């Protein structure tokens, strides 16, 4: 699973800490998601999508 969390976060000029606080997870979780070391739950994915005002599919995509 690939994601564009870092891209969208940087576009909004937010730090990992700010994003983590906004959606109620730890900064380590955001870091692990951005590094593709951790696939978040549906709930976290939807919270991220809501935060970026995008759909989940625009942030996460399945790898071939």
């Amino acid at each position, binding site marked *: 699973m690939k994601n564009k969390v870092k891209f969208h976060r940087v576009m909004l000029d937010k730090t990992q800490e700010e994003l983590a606080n906004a959606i109620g997870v730890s900064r380590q979780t955001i870091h*692990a998601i951005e590094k593709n070391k951790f696939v978040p739950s549906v709930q976290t994915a939807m919270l991220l999508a809501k935060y970026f005002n995008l759909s989940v599919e625009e942030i996460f995509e399945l790898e071939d």
Partner: protein
Amino acid sequence: MKLLPHYFKWIGLIIFFVGLTVNFIDEGRRGFIEGYNDAIDDPSERIETEFNPVFPDQATHLSDIALLIGLLIYILAKNKQEDEFIQKLRYESAFLVMVISLLIVLIIYLFNENFKIDPSTFLSLQMIGYLLVRMFKRKLILRVDNEEQS
């Protein structure tokens, strides 16, 4: 998974260190003296010929239990920030340690049918192993953490 509040980490650590200290007073001393005496060739240089325990045997046994309970409470207490990523690390580390410890015991037993392990040693090694694996996994995943604050 329901976990204990974060402040239980401190309670667990205190119980662990009390258990460790009481345990060390007799068991640690006994181990050190016996080890030292075994290593000395000249019997006149032995530091103590007769070991006098400070606590009764029950106290040493209780300190062993306290040590294990302290570790268990520490493991079951939440981190400062507990979320799904930390939970995943917990599950993966616990599974890894369980499989590795069972394999080690199985392999040793395979080559030595008289192999016995003290339950307290086995449990404490498993719990310490779990804490170490969890710490290393976390460090490994977050190792490029410092470069990341953009």
